[in-house]
């Protein structure tokens, strides 16, 4: 017997609350969770993402498997969080790791509320004022569980005034783990943050994550979000561009193959005048892969002089794949610039013929064109260590042989 979506929503909430109480959660965190409602089929923001995979009982157990294929270190400085627990760290002078977490603004989803109620020890990385950290900090966030189970990593990166740093937020998961993550990036005046979010968890894992970018000061944030699909990947990304003169750039690539799924819900909140934001994402879907991109730009009444852009171009590799992309503009001020464009296309037959006419087999030609489609963004990554890791990763994803019977 299958559970209806609303029964499942009730079950999830009951389980989440029970876990939170057992955990000893109280105060605002528990209140927030009590107030949250888990999505049902008709919930607009979740209409492309079914939670029925969670009926397997991920919330009933805590992930505690061995990480059999841990991530390679992409920097001298590494912080490792396994199954939601801090495992170890090596950090440069000027970066302080502690657990005294500030309140995270802008959280909205029930899963983020649940994370807040049960995550024992948030990892806070605080970069000292007027300090430039040369090497990237590689945050390895790993989960593993053979049976359905979950974990709740919570990371807060705080750049104090005038700080400059690069943070690689890197996920890896094995088996049937659900990673229910919350990450917040908080920047003070004159801070400069380069952020990567690399999500390449294994096919049967689940990821429900919230990323908050809270630009409390006049700061610059460049965020690169690269991901492949898995059984369920849901990213709620919310940027609060909250001080005049702040600048935010988000670029991303998502690739879904076979039956994998990615749902990106981005929202940039412009609440004050004269800020800039840019979102530039490219998506690729093959076989029965499903991808969703919802890019919301919310310009509040006082936010005159806002310059906000959004672009999402997508490539469908075959008719069975699906991409739903939508810009969502809510603009309450006339004195703004706002450009947006989304497209879903197919591989160009003329380009493909050109490659084949030079002896390149059809499948290889497709792979080259797919990679070419995302290459511009890939080549724009400022850190060579990340490019070196990401390029073969995405290349393998684009090369992978499709299961028999599927059109390649």
């Amino acid at each position, binding site marked *: 017997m299958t559970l209806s979506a609303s029964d499942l929503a009730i079950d999830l909430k009951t389980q989440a609350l029970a876990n939170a109480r057992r955990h000893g959660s109280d105060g605002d965190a528990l209140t927030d969770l009590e107030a949250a409602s888990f999505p049902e089929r008709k919930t607009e923001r979740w209409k492309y993402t079914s939670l029925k995979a969670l009926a397997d009982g991920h919330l009933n157990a805590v992930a505690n498997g061995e990480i059999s294929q841990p991530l390679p270190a992409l920097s001298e400085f590494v912080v490792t969080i396994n199954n939601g627990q801090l495992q170890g760290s090596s950090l440069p002078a000027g970066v302080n790791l502690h657990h005294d977490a500030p309140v995270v603004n802008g959280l909205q989803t029930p899963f983020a509320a649940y994370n807040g109620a049960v995550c024992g020890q948030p990892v806070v990385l605080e970069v000292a004022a007027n300090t430039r950290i040369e090497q990237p900090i590689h945050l390895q966030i790993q989960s593993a569980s053979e049976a359905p189970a979950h974990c709740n990593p919570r990371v807060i990166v705080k750049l104090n005034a005038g700080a400059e740093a690069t943070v690689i937020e890197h996920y890896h998961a094995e088996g049937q783990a659900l990673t229910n993550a919350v990450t917040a990036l908080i920047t003070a005046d004159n801070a400069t943050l380069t952020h990567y979010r690399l999500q390449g968890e294994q096919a049967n894992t689940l990821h429900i994550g919230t990323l908050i970018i809270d630009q409390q000061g006049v700061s610059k944030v460049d965020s690169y979000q690269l991901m492949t699909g898995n059984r369920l990947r849901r990213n709620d990304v919310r940027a609060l561009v909250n001080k005049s003169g702040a600048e935010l750039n988000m670029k991303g690539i998502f690739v879904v193959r076979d039956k994998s799924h990615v749902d990106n819900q981005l929202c940039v909140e412009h609440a004050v005048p004269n800020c800039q934001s840019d979102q530039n994402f490219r998506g690729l879907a093959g076989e029965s892969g499903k991808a969703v991109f919802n890019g919301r730009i919310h310009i509040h009444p006082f936010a005159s002089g806002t310059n906000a852009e959004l672009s999402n171009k997508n490539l469908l590799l075959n008719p069975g794949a699906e991409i739903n992309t939508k810009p969502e503009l809510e603009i309450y001020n006339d004195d703004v610039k706002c450009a947006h464009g989304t497209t879903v296309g197919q591989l160009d037959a003329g380009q493909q013929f050109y490659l*084949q006419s030079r*002896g*390149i*087999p059809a499948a290889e030609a497709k792979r080259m064109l797919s990679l*070419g489609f995302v290459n511009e963004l890939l080549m724009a990554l400022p850190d060579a260590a990340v490019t070196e890791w990401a390029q073969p990763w995405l290349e393998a994803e684009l090369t992978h042989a499709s299961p028999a019977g599927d059109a390649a």
Partner: protein
Amino acid sequence: MLEIRDLHATVADKPILKGLNLTIKPGEVHAIMGPNGSGKSTLANVLAGRDNYAITGGEALFEGKSLAELEPEERAQAGLFLAFQYPVEIPGVSNMEFLKAALESVRTAQGKEEWDSVTLLRQARAACKQVNLDASFLKRGVNEGFSGGEKKRNEIMQMLLMEPKLALLDETDSGLDIDALQTVAKGVNSLRSPERGIVLVTHYQRLLDYIVPDFVHVLSNGQIIKSGGKELALELEKKGYGWLTGEEESA
């Protein structure tokens, strides 16, 4: 090496080639001339195997094998090369990466020794030099942002590396200034050999001053209506096509 018999072909279901005959033997250089829209590019694309270009009658045999049964890549692997009239731009795929994939596939299929990356780079640079293309073009996206003339030279550069048995050049001369034309002609002439066939599709006889053909054919309304030696090109230059096609035409 190429034997075309009573070839009928459609483009997007529209009949364009209407009973075309042509035989090309190793070592020969043929020029195909004809008015705009007569079907020259259609012939080239049908031979290369483009989608939407369908053979509806007759046959085209390359070294005894029916081209209709081969995928475009198999035709290239068999030694057929088409220099396109309008080469497409492929942003994000570098010229070098493209050449590497093409040469690996074609050389392997032809049983030639594999080129390691150092050899490949050396050969590619030499080929660029031969057509007066700066080696920096190897790093750029395939044809991306190239001028018309650069695209044509890029085609010839690829041809030099691929060493095809049969090369079809579709209006490689159009859009080239006289210096570029001579460079391209030199490149093509360097490939002339007793084993190789070359077909020059052109609108003007100018190219034929530099690459002297053994045979000239006039294609009109999907058929070859006249064949001759190189002097036919000069005659066409003087008189236009009207006297052959029966239509008014200023070449």
